[in-house]
């Protein structure tokens, strides 16, 4: 693969319908059923070409829900490695964003920030990451998150540097 193509914005590569893979890393199911809600008649995201696929190798975008538990971590890394680049991730829900209510429990390693550190060690790159907070994230927010990721809608927050205290 040509390294240069990753420098492009995802929206330049993914112009048409986007295929998503749903990855529950140990969540409570609330965000997961909201994702399903997005795909069923009331919200019907398939009209935007958003379609759920069964294999990470077919996916353009990973919908990551839940805190990353110790038991799922190796499997999550393998799954993300299988996703072709540009590797896009939507961190859905408070747990995926920052570990949520479980952030310092013995059973989990934390949220996506902790996962990113592990991924970095193992050489798996995430090309673009968008956070969708909420407990659970609302279906509207999930659709909005996908739109932000593709560059269709503008994010409501600006990027600012904050100091993160890591234990």
């Amino acid at each position: 693969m040509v390294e240069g193509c990753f420098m492009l914005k995802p929206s330049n590569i993914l112009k048409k319908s986007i295929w998503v893979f749903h990855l529950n890393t140990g969540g409570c199911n609330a965000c997961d059923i909201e994702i399903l809600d997005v795909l069923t008649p009331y919200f019907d995201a398939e009209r935007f070409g958003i379609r759920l696929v069964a294999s990470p190798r077919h996916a353009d975008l990973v919908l990551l829900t839940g805190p990353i538990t110790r038991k799922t971590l190796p499997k999550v890394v393998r799954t993300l490695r299988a996703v072709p680049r540009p590797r896009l991730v939507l961190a859905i829900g408070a747990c995926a964003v920052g570990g949520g209510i479980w952030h310092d429990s013995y059973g989990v390693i934390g949220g996506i920030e902790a996962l990113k550190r592990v991924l970095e060690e193992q050489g798996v790159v995430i090309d673009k990451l968008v956070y969708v907070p909420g407990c659970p994230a609302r279906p509207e927010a999930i659709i909005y998150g996908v739109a932000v990721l593709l560059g269709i809608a503008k994010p409501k927050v600006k990027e600012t540097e904050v100091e993160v205290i890591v234990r």
Partner: protein
Amino acid sequence: MTVNKELIEKIRRKIVSEKGDLINRIYYEEGAGLLIEVSRGNLREIAYYVHEILDTYLRTVAGVDERPIKGVFSAYYVFGLDGYGLNIIVVTHMPPEDPKLPSITDIVPSADWYELEMYDLLGIRFSNRKLYRFVLPEDWPEGVYPLRKDTPYNIRPKPVKSQKQVLSGPRIPVGPYHPALHEPEYFELYVEGERVVDVEYNGFHVHRGIEKLGESRFTYQQVPFLAERICGICGFVHSVCYTQAVESAAKIEVPERALFIRSILLEVERLHSHLLWIGVACHLLGYDAGFMHAWRIREKTMILAELLTGSRKTYGINLVGGVKKDINNDKINATMKTIEWVENEFKKLVEVITSIPQIVKRAKGTGILPRSDARKLSVVGPVARASGLKRDVRKDYPYAAYKYVSFKVPVYSEGDNLARLLVRVDEVFESINIIRQLLDQLPQGPIMSEEIEIPENAIGVSSVEAPRGEDIHFVITGKDNKLYRWRVRAPTYQNIPALKVMLKDAPLADAPLTIASIDPCFSCTDRIQVVDLSTGKRRTISFKELQRYNICPRCGL
């Protein structure tokens, strides 16, 4: 929980006269049940007596590290006396230097998982059985037991090399970890050709250390928010169950209006959960139109939940002593309108589903769980009711406002997938009926009790009928406004072992529906490993792919 005092005395005298010489102490504690203290040498005999002679079923087992207060490890075996609304709790203590118990799995088969869990999380060993790593991840070091009081809740031990033996033989993994749609849970099906021979479960991927967090970082009034996040589908069940357990331990009177509001929300939650399951069942049978229709109807119940509580899920209105949010007349009217719409639409959908011969044929006679096995394995909820056991916590151990309403408990004797489908269909109509009755009778008054004082070292047991079955919380109160021990037992915990019976000798094509038929917290069976015993070949396939054995025309929803 109110139980007839005379009845308790009768049972107490019966136990004392028949097994008095084996018992150290027997006493009744309000809010918990009849406690029987036995030495560990007599545990097996008493367990046999309580389970077989008194005809009870195992509801939960809680291992407790009571070294800081009593200097011992303890195990609380909670048995339920069906139909009487009484818990019989067998308590046994172990010295701290030798935490060992005799296994009771040959007497009570459903104790299997509880023993493994106690071994894994508390370091209690069991004689006469195989013990192995169960809940904790493979790389967790030996000798670190998270539920012991001297282990901090935020411990992060360095991973050790996994001890697990890798199975020999060619292995063709198709796709890595594969939780598409579902939660990360994992079954291994052993097959001979197309016939399922055995099934093994490898779960607890979602072990987040909730019990330990509830005992350490959270105070009494914060735990309901944590409890709601145990499960995103039936979260309110857990928060009600927890608050009830603490209320019964501390003998707090909850205002009637709060009880009504809790019941209404529990039924709204049941509506959305059953509609979700019926949709998923249709999807697994390759009938995607039914799936979409069920979810279209379900969306109205989500909007209703938002109207009543402010959130679509994780309602966050429950506290020890009452609820935070009231229901006014506008909301009552809107609720009435919504449930009427849901009822009409659902009637139409059910007519269609039950008249499609392909659906009925696939569900009828598959995944049979006979009544005797259902009893032996202590299954709960719709699974038990579809196998002819009339077991419903709302009737057996009345809580919240269920004593004010009349409703039927649907029971089918066939024990197959169709029976489990029909139980849930009937329950949707019953739920609508219950919500109507509750809204009609909603009493006036406060929604939060004024005085909340929680004593130390009180035991509370409470159960709630979740959409999937009976959910039980066991609490021991502690000091500093915190719990000493919190044991959560979700319904799927009791039901998964029954899959062994249901799947045995069934064709592989029926496996997805059968596994989903226990509603394992939204068919969390993401990945299934198929092992062909005749050739010894082992390959891993995803749940989605297994569906291809069915008539599922399009994969990926």
